[in-house]
């Protein structure tokens, strides 16, 4: 290692030699950096879970443009929109097809007393083009009264029930005074809003939610003609529909708007955002402490080098070398422990907590920057001092 680095730098790898000389101190420094990484990863993971669960229901849909009420907030936190707008939209050039989407929260109690809340999508069972292919395959079976597709990642559902469902059996349960029969599954997972999802036909939906009116769905889903951009059609729709009551969004824009709303308008989002901020702040302080302690520990030796005629850039070189070593060695355990804790969180909460490559890269680069910056600040003391005062 040392020989390799000597070749690489064209000088002795003082930083590396210094760190590897004292294993105990190295372990402490690496643990510090790893812990800082862990803190940030956990906060980002929870933040990511919120974002993930916000957009997860979109995964069931296959739509280009969504019409919603201006009063609504997000896909699942919506107000009703008049179905008449669907027919108006169909008259707009570029719109190929349209369907209403009904959304409701379905609470029910399992035999063992567990309460489960399912986010329920009511869709036109004859319109296979508006749902993902996995759901579309079972859609015709939903035309049978009171049949539903159940989320196989539903939090609180007994595993045997979900397993038997996946293998083709059906499962009946009572909810809102109706007997519903799950005839298949799809996979979305629980989030901050519900324990899982349910897909059913609009007819069944209206039976289960008798206060809902077929003329007032939550959203109107639109497919556009091939070769037309969604933005162009959206612009035409905005011109054709009353802007005071109808919000026209491409699916991509709707997702972004939902994320923005959940992270800035809802207390959970603000709290988690604050958590990320605190995590980064505490992480920075830890990393700075590690690097500045290291510089302080070697001040005498650096002073000797300074007396020998080494300049400030040499010391920055040493400290940057240490910063890189600590950032890399700290990141590895930090990353793997975080993965373990993510898995634990998923098991306990069913939230979509997962490690994204972009997040890992970002945290690593952040660690590198924090280490380098801290080291740079810590060596400033050396720059201003007379070598003779430091011995």
């Amino acid at each position, binding site marked *: 290692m040392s020989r390799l680095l000597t070749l690489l730098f064209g000088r002795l790898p003082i930083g590396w030699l*210094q760190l590897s*000389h004292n294993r105990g101190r190295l372990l402490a420094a690496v643990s510090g950096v790893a812990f800082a990484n862990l803190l940030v990863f956990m906060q980002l993971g929870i933040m990511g879970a919120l974002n993930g669960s916000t957009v997860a229901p979109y995964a069931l849909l296959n739509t280009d443009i969504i019409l919603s009420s201006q009063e609504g907030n997000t896909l699942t936190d919506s107000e009703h929109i008049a179905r008449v707008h669907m027919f108006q939209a169909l008259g707009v050039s570029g719109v190929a097809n349209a369907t209403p989407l009904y959304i409701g929260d379905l609470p029910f109690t399992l035999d063992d007393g567990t309460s489960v809340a399912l986010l329920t999508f009511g869709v036109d069972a004859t319109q296979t083009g508006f749902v993902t292919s996995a759901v579309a395959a079972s859609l015709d079976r939903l035309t049978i009264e009171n049949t539903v597709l159940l989320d196989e990642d539903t939090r609180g559902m007994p595993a045997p029930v979900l397993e038997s469902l996946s293998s083709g059996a059906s499962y009946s349960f009572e909810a809102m005074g109706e007997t519903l029969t799950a005839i298949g599954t799809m996979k979305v997972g629980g989030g901050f809003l519900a324990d899982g999802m349910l897909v059913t036909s609009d007819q069944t939906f209206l039976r289960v939610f008798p206060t809902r009116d077929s003329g007032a769905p939550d959203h109107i889903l639109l497919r556009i003609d091939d070769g037309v951009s969604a933005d162009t059609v959206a612009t035409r729709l905005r011109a054709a529909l009353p802007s005071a009551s109808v919000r026209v969004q491409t699916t991509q824009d709707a997702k972004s708007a939902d994320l923005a709303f959940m992270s800035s308008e809802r207390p959970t989002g603000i709290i988690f955002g604050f958590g990320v901020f605190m995590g980064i702040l505490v992480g920075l302080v830890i990393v700075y402490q590690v690097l500045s302690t290291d510089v302080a520990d070697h001040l005498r030796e650096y002073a000797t080098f300074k007396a020998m005629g080494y*300049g400030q850039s040499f010391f920055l070189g040493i400290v940057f070398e240490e910063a890189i070593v600590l950032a890399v060695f700290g990141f590895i355990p930090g990353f793997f422990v975080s993965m373990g804790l993510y898995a634990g969180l998923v098991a306990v909460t069913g939230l979509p907590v997962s490690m994204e490559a972009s997040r890992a890269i970002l945290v690593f680069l952040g660690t590198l920057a924090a280490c380098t910056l801290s080291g740079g600040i810590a060596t400033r003391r050396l720059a201003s001092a*007379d070598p003779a005062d430091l*011995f």
Partner: protein
Amino acid sequence: MTDSPIEVRGLNHFFGTGEARKQAIFDINLSIARGSLTILMGPSGSGKTTLLTLIGALREIQDGSVVLLDHELHGAPEADLVALRRRLGFIFQAHNLHESLTATQNVLMGLEVHGKGNAAKQRAASHHMLDLLGLADRREYVPANLSGGQKQRVAVARALVSNPEIVLADEPTAALDKASGHTVVEMLKSLGKTRGTTTVMVTHDPRILQMADRIITLEDGRIVTDKSQ
């Protein structure tokens, strides 16, 4: 090249500020001849080490003038001081070796300060210097595994390996036995003759006084005697 690589004029130095401000060096005037071996003597607290560090560009000059190798140190920018330090070999009172580096690596630091070079050649030069000081079998030892005298000799090797024009030494023989101490001083003397290396050494060691060309005694920050021999 000048005949007097060290010229000190009207040098005063103070420690502390305000009420606690105390003068450590009083109006020193000194001219050191090229290739000579000068010894600074005096009781502890007389300002020997302070004077040595002022000459060695390790302390900011507050008042007076030190011209080192034709460069005025008073008010010199940091870059000039760094460049000048590279032309000196400083042997510190405490050996000040880097704990994480082996004897060879410590000596190499004395060469690498001059920039990238042929690594194999630098290594060979470092080994040669250690061998001359009787440390051939201690090349790969870290300081923690060396005796006080061995560490001091590594420090000497580090200071001399780059053929400095001036060697400034603070009690270089204190931790050495008679024979090693003699070797080190002989080495400095012969460098003076062959290469014109100028040495200024702070010492209490009576064993090496007769080897000096000049002995200067300080008391309370002032020169009290100055004998050439």
